[in-house]
C-alpha cells in the first residue's frame, strides 16, 4: 500500500512541477494545487498507513492510526486552501491590470539582453 501511494505521490509531484514551470499563471496555480495534494499524501504515508482503527476512541480498541500526521495534514489542507484562494485572486487582478496571464509578459519593464 505504501509503495503504491509513494508512486502516486511521485506522479503528482511530477505533474505539479511541470505545471508550475509553465508560463501561464493558471497552470501554475493548478500546479500548486497538485503539489499540495502530493505533500499531504507524503506526510501521511511517512507516518505509516492503516496501522489501526480511525483515531476516535472506541471501547475495546487499542490500535489506532497515528493521529499526529492527520492533525498536521488537516492544518495543511486549510492553509493550502488559503494560499490557493489568495493566489487565484492575485492572478485575476493581475490579469485585469496587465491584460495578460503570461508571466513572461508580466515581467518588469527592465530590458533583459
Amino acid at each position, binding site marked *: *500500500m*505504501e509503495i503504491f*501511494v*509513494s*508512486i*502516486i*505521490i*511521485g*506522479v*503528482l*509531484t*511530477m*505533474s*505539479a*512541477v511541470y*505545471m508550475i*514551470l*509553465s*508560463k*501561464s499563471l*493558471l*497552470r501554475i496555480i*493548478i500546479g500548486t*494545487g*497538485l503539489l499540495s*495534494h*502530493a505533500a*499531504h499524501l*507524503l506526510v*501521511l504515508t*511517512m507516518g*505509516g498507513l*492503516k496501522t489501526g482503527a480511525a*483515531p*476516535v476512541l472506541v471501547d475495546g480498541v487499542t490500535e489506532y*492510526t*497515528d*493521529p*499526529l500526521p*492527520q*492533525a498536521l*495534514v488537516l*492544518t495543511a*489542507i486549510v492553509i493550502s486552501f*488559503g*494560499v*490557493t*484562494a*489568495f493566489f*487565484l*485572486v492575485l492572478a*485575476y487582478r493581475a*490579469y485585469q*491590470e496587465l*491584460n*495578460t*496571464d*503570461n*508571466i*513572461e509578459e508580466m515581467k518588469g519593464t527592465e530590458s533583459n539582453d
Partner: protein
Amino acid sequence: MSVLHLAILLPLLAAPFIPFLFRALKRIHTGWFVLIVPVVLFVYFFRFIGITSAGDVVTETVEWMPSLGINFTAYVDGLGLLFALLITGIGALVVLYSIYYLNKDKESLGHFYVYLLLFMGAMLGVVLSDNMVVMYMFWELTSISSFLLIGYWYEKERSRYGARKSMLITVFGGLSMLGGIVILESIVGSFSIRDMVANQAVIADSPFFIAAMILILLGAFTKSAQFPFHIWLPDAMEAPTPVSAYLHSATMVKAGLYLVARMSPVFQESPIWLWTIAAVGTFTLFWGSFNAVKQTDLKGILAFSTVSQLGLIMSLLGLGAAALHYDGMDDNIYMVATIAAIFHLINHATFKGSLFMMVGIVDHETGTRDIRKLGGLMTVMPITFTIAVIGSLSMAGLPPFNGFLSKEMFLKATTKVFSMDFFALDTIGILIPVVAFIASVFTFIYSLIIFTRTFMGKAQFDRLPKQPHEAPIGMLIPPAILAILVVVLGFVPNVLSNSLIKPAVESIYPTLVASGQEVKVDIYFWHGLTPELFMTIGVILLGTLMFYTINKWMGIYNRIPHRLTLNGMYDGSLVWSNKAAYRFKDNYMTGFIRSYLVYIFLFLSGMMLFSMYWFDLFNFSFGEMEPVAPYEYVLGAVIILAALAITFMRSRLPSIILLGVVGYSVALFFVFFNAPDLALTQLVIETVSVALFLLVFYHMPEISKKEVRVKFKIENAIVSIIVGVTVMLLSFMALSNRSLSSISEYYKENVYDLAAGKNMVNVVLVDFRGFDTLFEIVVLAIAAIGIYTMIKFRTTERTKGAREHEPKK
C-alpha cells in the same frame, strides 16, 4: 575597563557628540572642541615615556570574546608608544590647523571631525592592541575613515574616484592580512602578538610560514603604499589638506611600517623577509622619487615623495633584520638600519607634516597648487617660505636638519650590505645602495622644485585665482612647530635616543635584548670622511646639475603609454571586472521566474539525492505492509491518469475538472487511510476550491497556446521527472528507516483524561496544539484581508487604460 582602554577609545567616544556641538554652537568653530581630545591624549601618553624608556611595558586586558581567544588587550611598549605620540601629537596640530583651513560656515564640519576622530581612535587601537583580531578590526576602521575623509568633498568626481581606489586597495590588503592572522593563530593557538613572538621558532618551522608572511606583508604594503600598491596614495590627495598631512603622510600610511616592525620578531630570521621588504622598499623609494619630479601639483609631488619616503623606511626595516645574524657582536652595527628607520619615521612626520601644511596654506591663499602658475611668493609669504625651505631641505637630506641625520644613517645602512656575506647580499644586494643613491638624487631634485617653483622665480600673480597674502597666524603655528622640531631634532637628536628610539628598537629585537645586548642609540653629525658622506656630496652635486638641466631630460616621462601604467591597469581591471560580473549575473539572473524555479527544484533534488547517497539510505527495506485492495488500485490509477492528463490540457475547464477529480480522489484515499476528519475537510475544501477556480477562470483568458517550443517542454519534463522521482525515493526512504516510535502514544493515552474528547485529531488541533490552530486562523484571516484589498482597492490613474480591455462582467 582601564584608563588605558578609555584613552584608546576616547576619540571614538567623543565622536558622537561632535554633530550636536556643530549644530548647537554655530558661532564657535567645532574644531576647538575636537582639539581637546588629542591634546589630552598626548599629555596622557607622554607620561608613559618614563615607563617604556626603563624597558617596561604596560598591559591591560578587557575580556571580549574569551572563548575565541579574542580580548581587547592594550599593550604599550616602545614601538606602540612612539606611534601613539605621533598620532596624538600630529593629530593635535592638524586639528588646530584645520580650524583655520576649513570654513565653519561653508563646510559640514560635523562630518569632518567625526571621521577624523574615528580615524584617531582606530589608529590608536591599531598600534596599542596586542590581540591581532582586535588590531585587524581597528586596521579596517582606519581604511574606512580614510575612505570617508578622501571622499569628504564627495560632489567632486576625483574625490569619489580616489576614495574608492584607496578603499579597494587597502581593504584587499586588510583581508589578506586577516588570512595571515588566521594562519598564525592556527600555528600558535593564540591571537596575541606576544605569544606569536614567544613561539617564533614554532612558526618558523611551520609549512605555512611563507604563506602567513606574504599575507601579512600584503596588508603592510597596501597600507603603506608600497610599489605596486602605491597608486592609491596620489589619488588620496583629493582629501582636504589637513587630512593629507595627518592620514596620508604622518600616521595612517605608517601603519604598514608599524605592522612590519611589530611582526619583525616573528619573521625576521627568514631571508625572504629581509629580501622582500628591502627590495620592495628600495624600489618604492626609487619609483616614488622618480615620479615625484614630473608632478605639477604640489600635493602630487608630496604624495609621491611620501610613497618614496615610506619605501625608504620600509627598506631600512628589511635591512635591519640582518642584525639578528650578527648577534655575537658587542656593538651590533647592523642595528643602525632599524634605528635609522625609527628615527626617519619621526623625522618624516615632522618635515612632511610641515610641508603638507605649507602647501595647504599656499592653496588656501592663492587658490591653486599648480607649480606652473605659482612663483615669486617669497616676498608676500615670508613665513610660509621659511617653513617650506626648512621642510624641503630636511627632506633632501641636507644639514643641519634632522632629515640629514636619518638620511646619512640610511645610506650607511645600505653600504653595510657590502659587508654582509649571507643571503646573496654581497652580490645582487649591491643594487640596494646604487638604487638608494639614484633615488636620493631624485629626492634632492623634487625637494628643490617644491620651494623654488612656488616661492622663487618670476611672480605671476595675475594668473592666480586669488591675490596672495600671508596666512593667518593660527594656520602658521602648526607647521611652524613642526619646522622648529625639524631644526631642533637636527641639532639635538639625542633627546629622542633613549626616550623614544631605543625602546622602539628594543621592541623589534626582543631576542637580542633578551640575550643581553644593548641597543646603543647615539646620533651625531660628524662621522668623519665616511662613504655615506661622500654619497651625500655626490647626491648634492648630481642633483643640482640635473635640477638645472631638467628640461633636457623631462621627455623620458612620456615614454610609457597610459594603458601600461599601473593606474591604467587598475582602471582597466575595474571596467573588466564590472563587465565580467554583469555577464556572469546575466547568465543566471534571466528575470524569468521559470529559471529560478528550475534552480530551486534542481537544487532541492540534488541536495536530497546527494544526502541520501551520502548517508547510504538507498537500500530500501519495507517490511510488512498492508495489501492494496482492487478499488484502491482503481482510485490510484484515476489520480495518476488525471494528474498526467492535466499537463496536456490546453483549455481551462477540463483542467479545473481534472484538478477536482484529483482532489476528490485524494479525499477518498483519506477515507481508506482511516482519516475521517481529513476526508471531510478535503471534500469541503475541494468543493469550495473548484467553485473558486470556476469563478475566477470565467474572467481569465484561455490558456495561452504560446508554449509550443519543444525544447522548453522537454526541459520542463526532465526537471519535473527528476523532482517526482526524488520525492518518491524520499517517501521510500522514510518508510524503510523508521527507527523511532511515534510520539503520538502520549495523545492516545491522554486524549480523554486531559481533554475529555474522543476524536484524537480534533483534540490535538483544538487542545494540545491549540496555538497552531490559532495561528492557522490568523493565516487565513491575512489571506482574506489580502483578497479583500485586492478586489476592493484597485484604481490608480495609471491602470485606467488597462481596464478598458477587461472582459465584461
